[in-house]
């Protein structure tokens, strides 16, 4: 009886990968636990281990093959002593799990909406060449450019150096800048954040990476009490030029303690600037601005956006100002306001609404604090309706702040109450079926937009 070896999924979002290397050849005897092959995705390399004892009868996908779909049969094992021909006859391994899984579709992660193209920033000179790059690459380039420009800038965090970043954002930086400026820390968030703030007080410009912002809660005292307040408390004597960055918010299937948005937490605090980009161009331009800013900046990224590609202007020094929202799609019927991950759902919703004859304007906040009220109010004066969307909880949230600002500054222009949409008011559940309903979907945005247009 032969056993199929399937292409494994390395993460819930992985659909295909590369077989980088076979470590066994046909005819080899393997036992459970032996490494069969190295599999690569854009994020990581993983070793595929055998879970059975047997002989490698057939390697069906040669090494170097890219785009191998998850669950594709890549090799066959036969039991010791059996001829390799056994692998040819279609096996029906009864008790073996792979057969079972083929019969039942794997649980799908919450649907990730596909987004429409983004309008260009007016600041980009006409005729500028645009290059496609991922958000991950854009962030890395921003740090590298600023580190080349200013030797006071250094990067510190867990696994940022030798490991090349837990999410590969700092890839290559250790090689270029050495371990004086790319520093692997112990798992001591409260300690290294305080240390970073102290270094900033003394004139350096640290970039502190949190493996995810969930772990910054260990360090939030230093972010707020030490970083945000010191300039004020010292009567302007001491500034804290520091960037706190890392993935924030929803990440697929990692449950309550690893999937939470902190935009409103930091947005609440005077003395902090808070940035949360969506596109690669904004990620690059805003991170460069954040590193140069003389204030503490909380820079919220998103794991689920790291691998997305966008056009980025090819300019020697591309910066995007902190504090400016961006109209990414013009429209006249309703304003949809969001930032970061939920821009995907909002842009999809705008397309769907267009198909139904509702012309939505879409605004990406990009900066959470200071909030660009001017751009929001100008849009609402035109459309007279607004839906505000965030991935976090709406209670005391960014959406609540935006709604208040619109009520205070655009009350006379509103034809309907502003609606807020956000993640379900519960800790993030693990189960796929629950997670899907806990996260804002494009349909939810469409429904809310129709409601404020009185077309529901």
């Amino acid at each position, binding site marked *: 009886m032969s056993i199929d070896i*399937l292409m*494994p*999924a*390395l*993460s*819930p979002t992985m659909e295909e990968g590369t077989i980088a290397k076979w470590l066994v050849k046909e005819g080899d005897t393997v036992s459970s*636990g032996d*490494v069969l092959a190295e599999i690569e*995705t854009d994020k*990581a*390399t*993983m*070793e*595929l*281990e055998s*879970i059975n004892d047997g002989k490698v009868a057939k390697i069906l996908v040669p090494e170097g093959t890219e785009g191998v779909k998850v*669950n594709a049969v890549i090799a066959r094992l036969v039991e010791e002593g059996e001829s390799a021909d056994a692998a040819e006859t279609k096996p029906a391994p009864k*008790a073996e*799990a*792979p057969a*079972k*899984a083929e019969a*039942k579709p*794997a*649980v799908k*992660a919450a649907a990730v909406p596909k987004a429409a193209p983004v309008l260009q920033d007016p600041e980009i000179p006409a005729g500028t060449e645009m290059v496609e790059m991922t958000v991950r690459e854009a962030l890395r380039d921003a740090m590298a450019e600023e580190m080349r420009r200013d030797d006071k800038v250094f990067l510190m965090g*867990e*696994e940022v150096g*030798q*490991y*090349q970043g*837990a999410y590969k954002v700092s890839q290559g930086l250790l090689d270029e800048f050495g371990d004086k400026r790319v520093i*692997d820390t*112990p*798992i*001591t968030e*409260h*300690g290294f954040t305080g240390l970073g703030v102290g270094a900033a007080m003394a004139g350096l410009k640290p970039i502190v990476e949190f493996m995810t912002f*969930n*772990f910054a*809660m*260990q360090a939030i005292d230093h972010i707020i009490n030490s970083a945000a307040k010191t300039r004020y408390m010292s009567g302007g004597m001491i500034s804290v030029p520091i960037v706190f960055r890392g993935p924030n918010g929803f990440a*697929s*299937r*990692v*449950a*309550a*303690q*690893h999937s939470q948005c902190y935009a409103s937490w930091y947005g609440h605090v005077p003395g902090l600037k808070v940035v949360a980009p969506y596109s690669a161009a904004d990620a690059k331009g805003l991170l460069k601005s954040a590193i140069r800013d003389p204030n503490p900046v909380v820079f919220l990224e998103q794991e689920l956006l790291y691998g997305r590609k966008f056009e980025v202007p090819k300019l020697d020094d591309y910066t995007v100002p902190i504090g400016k929202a961006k109209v990414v799609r013009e429209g006249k019927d309703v304003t949809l306001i969001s930032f970061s991950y939920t821009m995907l759902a909002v842009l999809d919703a705008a397309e769907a609404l267009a198909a139904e004859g509702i012309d939505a304007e879409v605004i990406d906040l990009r900066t959470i604090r200071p909030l660009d009220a001017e751009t929001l109010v100008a849009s609402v004066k035109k459309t007279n309706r607004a839906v505000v969307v965030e991935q976090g909880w709406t209670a005391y949230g960014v959406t609540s702040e935006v709604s208040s600002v619109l009520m205070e500054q655009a009350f006379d222009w509103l034809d309907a109450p502003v609606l807020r949409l956000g993640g*379900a*008011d*519960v*800790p993030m*559940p*693990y*189960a*796929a*079926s*629950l997670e899907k309903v*806990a996260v804002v979907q494009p349909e939810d945005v469409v429904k809310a937009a129709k409601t404020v247009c009185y077309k529901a």
Partner: protein
Amino acid sequence: MTTRKPATKARQRAARASAPPPYKAKPKELLEFYREMLLIRRFEERAGQMYGMGLIGGFCHLYIGQEAVITGVRAAMKDGDSLITAYRDHGHILAVGTSPNAVMAELTGRSGGVSKGKGGSMHMFDVKANFYGGHGIVGAQIPLGAGIAFAHKYKGDGGVSVTFFGEGAANQGQVYEAFNMAELWGLPVVFIIENNQYAMGTSAERASSETHFYKRGTSFRIPGYEVDGMDVLAVRAAAEDAIGFVRDGNGPIILEMKTYRYRGHSMSDPAKYRSRDEVQKMRADRDPIDHLGEMLVATGAASEDDLKAVDREIKDIVSDAADFAQDSPEPDAAELFTEVYA
């Protein structure tokens, strides 16, 4: 809280300076240890496989290689003692006797899971078995473990809290806040550091100025020693010693279990921070299950056939768990809003 622990001198005499000799197990116990470790090993292998098939999502940290630690410690615990650990928790929950079906169904996020699919791999709980999780924030379970010990002492129920954490977690500041209070108040807690030598891709040497983690309590006057965590009998003896010390009202103690994880940190792991040879050598020379199997046969405590029978029994248990975890329905959408508040 009043401190009713004996004077420091007496306590220092009571605490050992190094690990006791290995536990002298009866043949029946040996076979039970073998069975327990094999259950964890095969369960984890199947979980890894199911992850690869997309049936398990998110982070999934396998315990393969470290089975002797929880098996030996659990065997020395009494009913009424408590246990808490981090996200690498599948072995711990299986060891307290929770149904493998419910554990696997939690991994697949189904309603038959221990937490109805709401917690997943990192957040296993079984409060009936005094198992308090399953915690995803590195270091957080350590003060919680001290708090459970506080409750045991407060209630006077004679229970001991056994609090597990990794050598990477040992660098978190809250560990030392917990150590200080635990000693100051004489809390009945055994701190077990599972030193598997790596925290994700960072070796203990690259992150720790003192890599003898059992010494980490020294400045709080907490005794500790190192234990061979790849030998279930060494673990069993040390755990009995440490739990006894704590139960006698001597306050906390630290056991550093030298162990090794064979698999990646979680499912996606670049595997570039250690050599394949290093892993292979550990597996070949130090595997806790192989080692015990050989010992069982060599001493005549069990025959090859006996071990094969255990193998078959475990295979069936794990297959049933895998089937159950795929057949159990996904939680109903209405479950989303339940259990937020008591």
